[in-house]
């Protein structure tokens, strides 16, 4: 595992702030009617994408979920092309044809957000197989939620990866809910990581609000995978601060205000910022300057997206087949 240098710590923080500000602004744009369709925001879960992706190169690949903006940003996604994709503009990562839930970019090793819950898991297994087949030390990471761990696809993926000892890490972002259903109503276990044992791989639980903890646990799992020791199921306990979809969602109460507040006290950004301040690795002024510069990045990216053209109608039928 890469030693946790000050540079890496700084990068982790930058990554988390970028995700937070990207998402907050995406949420606003959606509420103003500028971004069409559903947006599942990653606010509250930033430490996971940051902590895992810090170990990866562009050649390491991930499969993502419907809640995928944070994954792509942490993997190296550029804000301008991401916003453009959400807007449905031709300059977007997928020429505007994909949108939030279907965004992908092979160049940075992001095989796709996914509108189908669970679908990415077995695909990551195949990607991991190709890494082994080609005798590289590349890994594949499958992100998925607590809800997704009930889909057959999760179980097929876990079993195949374990039996073939593939270089894949299954990263469960357990935010306690599948849509509006609390975990206790959709599975009889508390730790999704318990399922690892049934497939013959290690299952690890980590505090998903603590980026250093995620970094370390992910590092171990990824090292194992790179060394040919097989898959790991890494469960990160987390919480989404926004509703399932959109900022306020449908406005129904299924979580208590107290619960939300309790988790917000463990905001991964606040926790990590405090750590950096305590360790004197950053000052309040540094943090403010960083936020400012990222705000500028966000603004420029939104401007780029807004000013980009719609795709040309003549391209409507393109990219279904080879030509």
């Amino acid at each position, binding site marked *: 595992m890469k030693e946790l240098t000050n540079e890496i710590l700084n990068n982790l923080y930058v990554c988390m702030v970028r995700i937070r500000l990207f998402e907050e602004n995406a949420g606003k744009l959606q509420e103003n009617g500028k971004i069409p369709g559903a947006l599942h925001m990653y606010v509250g879960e930033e430490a996971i994408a940051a902590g895992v992706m810090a170990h990866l190169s562009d050649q390491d690949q991930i499969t993502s979920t419907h809640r995928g903006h944070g994954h792509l940003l942490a993997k190296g996604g550029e804000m301008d092309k991401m916003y453009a994709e959400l807007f*449905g503009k031709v300059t977007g990562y997928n020429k505007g044809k994909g*949108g939030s839930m279907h965004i992908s970019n092979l160049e940075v090793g992001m095989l796709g957000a996914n*509108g189908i819950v669970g679908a990415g898991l077995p695909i990551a297994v195949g990607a991991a197989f190709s890494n082994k087949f080609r005798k590289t030390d590349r890994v594949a990471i499958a992100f998925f939620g607590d*809800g997704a761990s009930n*889909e*057959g696809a999760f179980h097929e993926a876990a079993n195949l990866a374990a039996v073939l000892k593939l270089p894949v890490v299954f990263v469960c972002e357990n935010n306690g809910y599948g*849509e509006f*259903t609390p975990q206790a109503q959709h599975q009889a276990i508390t730790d999704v990581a318990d399922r690892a044992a049934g497939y013959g791989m290690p299952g690890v639980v980590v505090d998903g609000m603590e980026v250093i903890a995620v970094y370390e646990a992910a590092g171990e799992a990824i090292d194992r995978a790179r060394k040919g020791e097989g898959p790991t199921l890494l469960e990160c306990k987390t919480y989404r601060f926004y509703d399932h979809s959109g900022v306020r969602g449908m406005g129904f109460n299924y979580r208590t205000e107290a619960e939300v507040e309790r988790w917000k006290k463990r905001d991964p950004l606040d926790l990590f910022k405090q750590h950096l301040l305590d360790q004197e690795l950053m000052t309040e002024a540094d943090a403010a300057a960083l936020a400012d510069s990222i705000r500028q990045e966000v603004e420029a990216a939104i401007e780029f997206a807004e000013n980009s053209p719609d795709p040309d109608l003549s391209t409507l*039928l393109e990219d279904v087949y080879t030509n």
Partner: protein
Amino acid sequence: MATMSMVQAINSALDITMERDQNVLCLGEDVGYFGGVFRCTAGLQEKYGQHRVLDTPIAEAGIIAAAIGMGVNGLRPVAEIQFADYIYPAFDQIVSELARLRYRSGGEFFAPVTVRAPCGGGIRGGQTHSQSPEGIFTHVCGLKVIMPSNPYDAKGLLISSIEDDDPIIFFEPKRCYNGPFYGDPHQQAVSWAGHPKGEVPEVYYTIPIGEAAIVRPGSEVTVLTYGTMVHVAEAAIEKSGIDAELIDLRTLLPLDIDAIVESLQKTHRCVVIHEATRTSGYGAELIADIQEECFWFLEAPIVRVTGWDTPYPHAFEWHYFPGQERIIEAMKSTLET
């Protein structure tokens, strides 16, 4: 009579059938405590309890398979697949099991499962929240496939479906859940209040499976469609001034071929419309049937207006979605021949 949205009409159908028959139960993702993401099952768990309105894990194959097991033993499960786009993980259970039980057991047993699935586009849902997969299911022997276009039909057909002993895929055009949609996204959304089919009896009633409805009688061309496109076609006909006969198929399988033949005997021309992609779509089957029955009195090639042969795009939604202009053009082209 009450004014109901399609959501309320579906809720009413579920409520009434659950009240009348202890064997009816609902299951699906977020259908219970939450009342369904589209609110179709709102209030039912409170009224009938957790064992009759089940919140399931996110596991579509499991939902359908469990419904089959329940159905074999005399329960009447109504399984909700939250969006029709999520039905594919359950495809094997639907095709290999649900559809074939009766045949496979030599008629000894069956599973009277109703699968409800909101379908269709026009909501900026992109590739995985907009599809119209009805043609995939009409290709499967043993299933009945239904898609109502309005609250009144939705209620009557859903009650019939739940009471039917055959497995039914009941598609709900979600763009019309809260009001008819006429194809113009810039027009202010309207509710079902004021629409004649938004008037729905609060009591039990049924609409027979397998009967089409004439929405608008006409003499020049027959327009066949279902779901959201019924309203788009109605507006297009209005705008065009063409005296078209608009038929809402309502049930795709079994098809009311008699109603179609009767109409074509009058008009001799036909336009077929659906949101789903074109190639091997349900329209192809319709046209083949019409060709067999009506060849000698057709006066123009039958024209299809459909979604494009692409995944449902995020951008371009209003080009992909068959709008009024494309429908008017199609009607005109049949009249010119």
